[in-house]
């Protein structure tokens, strides 16, 4: 099957997910009538994180964003599909073989408080990945940790403090320093700004932009906050019920969304102009799930065979929408 967003040969993406899936088996029922229901948290996800860019992964809570991120990090085993880091398939690597690849891919979570050991000084917290990977002497590690604290905007004096002494924004800075000290090529950031205040949020967004450019980082930025994604990301993928339903350059999503679910998300963003207040119409999840766009081949930006099974098809260069494809323009409905 032709992947519409296939990148140019030779340009290996930083991270690529191919047909990634995760099914949880939930036990339900009593002791006697034990049943197992399958929860398809993530289904057939294809994602390409290009080098030196920021890809946003958006969707409501429960749509499968974190599960996808955790699988990409090999912190959760996928039930289907493959994970390619800099072109190498790391899906089945054992822990020893995986260790060098772990240096290349790091993570920052929303709640960094629980990730920062309260018993360690911040200098120790930030130096910890170096120690785990056996890099440098203790003195070198300490010095690099202090330098990283400065780089994320905390003066060196913070090195002797503890996580509980920090504000939410400062803790996120420490978590970012700790994630980047190994010089990874990929950073997975799972809602890193969602718990922060407005002015602190802007500071962390700017810090991530600066570090991305300075280090040539590739960032998978997971968020339910579309406003942040608009300012930060080069490209956006929209997740709904475990599937990617639309993906495009950021302004392709914000200016020309085609999938009903994407549109409903965009429509719900509070407007900053009180003169633009309006009554909104809300569509149920079931209604949105049933409203699969039907596109004719003539509307597509590429040669795609007709298909009754919904799949991601290009509606413009680099703009993919999950749709059914008909041969005849007249049978078209929906988007």
């Amino acid at each position: 099957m032709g992947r519409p967003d296939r990148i140019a040969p030779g340009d290996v993406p930083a991270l690529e997910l191919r047909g990634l899936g995760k099914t949880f088996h939930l036990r339900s029922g009593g002791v006697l009538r034990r049943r197992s229901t399958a929860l398809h948290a993530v289904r057939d996800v294809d994602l390409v994180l290009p080098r030196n860019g920021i890809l946003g992964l958006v969707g409501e809570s429960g749509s499968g964003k974190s599960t996808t991120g955790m699988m990409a990090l090999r912190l959760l085993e996928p039930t289907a599909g493959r994970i390619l880091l800099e072109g190498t398939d790391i899906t089945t690597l054992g822990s020893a073989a995986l260790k060098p690849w772990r240096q290349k891919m790091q993570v920052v979570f929303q709640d960094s408080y629980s990730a920062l050991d309260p018993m360690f000084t911040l200098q120790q917290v930030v130096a910890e990945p170096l120690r785990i990977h056996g890099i440098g002497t203790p003195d070198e590690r300490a010095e690099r940790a202090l330098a990283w604290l400065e780089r994320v905007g905390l003066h060196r004096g913070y090195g002797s403090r503890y996580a509980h002494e920090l504000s939410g924004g400062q803790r996120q800075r420490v978590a970012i320093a700790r994630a980047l000290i190994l010089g990874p090529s990929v950073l997975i950031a799972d809602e890193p700004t969602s718990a922060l205040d407005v002015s602190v949020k802007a500071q962390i967004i700017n810090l991530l932009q600066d570090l991305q450019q300075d280090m040539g980082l590739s960032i998978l930025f997971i968020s339910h906050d579309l406003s942040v994604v608009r300012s930060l990301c080069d490209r956006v993928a929209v997740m709904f019920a475990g599937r990617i339903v639309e993906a495009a350059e950021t302004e392709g999503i914000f200016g020309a969304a085609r999938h009903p679910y994407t549109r409903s998300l965009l429509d719900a963003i509070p407007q900053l102009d009180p003169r633009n207040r309006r009554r909104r119409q809300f569509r149920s999840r079931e209604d949105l799930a049933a409203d699969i766009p039907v596109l004719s081949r003539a509307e597509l930006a590429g040669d795609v065979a007709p298909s009754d099974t919904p799949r991601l098809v290009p509606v413009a260069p680099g703009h993919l929408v999950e749709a059914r494809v008909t041969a005849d323009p007249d049978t078209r409905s929906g988007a």
Partner: protein
Amino acid sequence: MTATEPFAPAGQTAPIVEIEDLQVGFPQLDGTVQAVRGVSFSLAAGESLGIVGESGSGKSVSCMAVMRLLRTPPARITARRLALDGVDVMAAGRRQMAELRGSVAAMIFQDPMTAFDPVFSIGTQIVETIQAHRATTTRAARAEALALLERVEIRNAAAILDSYPHQLSGGMLQRAMIAMALSCRPRVLFADEPTTALDVTVQAQILQLIKDLQDDFGMGLVMVTHDLGVVAETVDRVVVMYGGRVMEEASVHDIFERPAHPYTRALLVSIPGQEGGRRRLTEIPGASPDPSNPPTGCPFHPRCRQADARCRTDMPAMTPLGEGRRAACWRL
């Protein structure tokens, strides 16, 4: 409120909420957390007011103080006036206060779990709230509870009546809490970050619901939030707080179209997603003040690009700017 107050909403009935020069401190072993340092605002019947500010600016404590929901001690509250529906809440007894809470003012929170007792069903708790304020039969109160759950657009209201708080999703529980708050027909609803923990689509639905209910019940609304988008969507007038003080108050249109205070302006431009294209945001450097050691002068001066010597030493008074606008800044 006295006639000389420059910010009294013109030509309106007696205010439902009056807060004048409110100070709230929390004594600690090593000093005092000065959570609120001289806050004044009021709300007329049926009016909607947004209280916007970053976390720690004193929004919740101000509202809890006028609702008498702060325990004293530890909290130390002083005010020139603190009243609900004309009743001085500082002088009100326990029973009178319980009566005011519910029939005059009700409050909803970010985390609805705090409003419900986990061991009783939703229905039982709403029925109890109704019966605490009015003499009705349990059967009648239950019918009322059902109608309320339907009014807040809970599908399957009859089943929800018998379910327990932990069985509901965040959005559903938020609706149930709103139903409980409305059960005594309050004249003003304090909504403290009611949508902060919710997804954007659920948030939009809850905000719409609150606005509809405000219209239907002719109820006043105090919307407490750190999100200027929520303010733009829901209220007519806005109070901007910072470091335990009011920085600016104006109509929602003026706040967005001609913000007077440097803090309001800085906050507005730092909001992400206003323009297309990946870009650095105009951030406010530095951090919010430490409430146990607030800066002298204007609390915003350490982060303010326009600050001069006077801003560092003296707190500017609220200056009326006409048309109900007022701001506390030396550089107006």
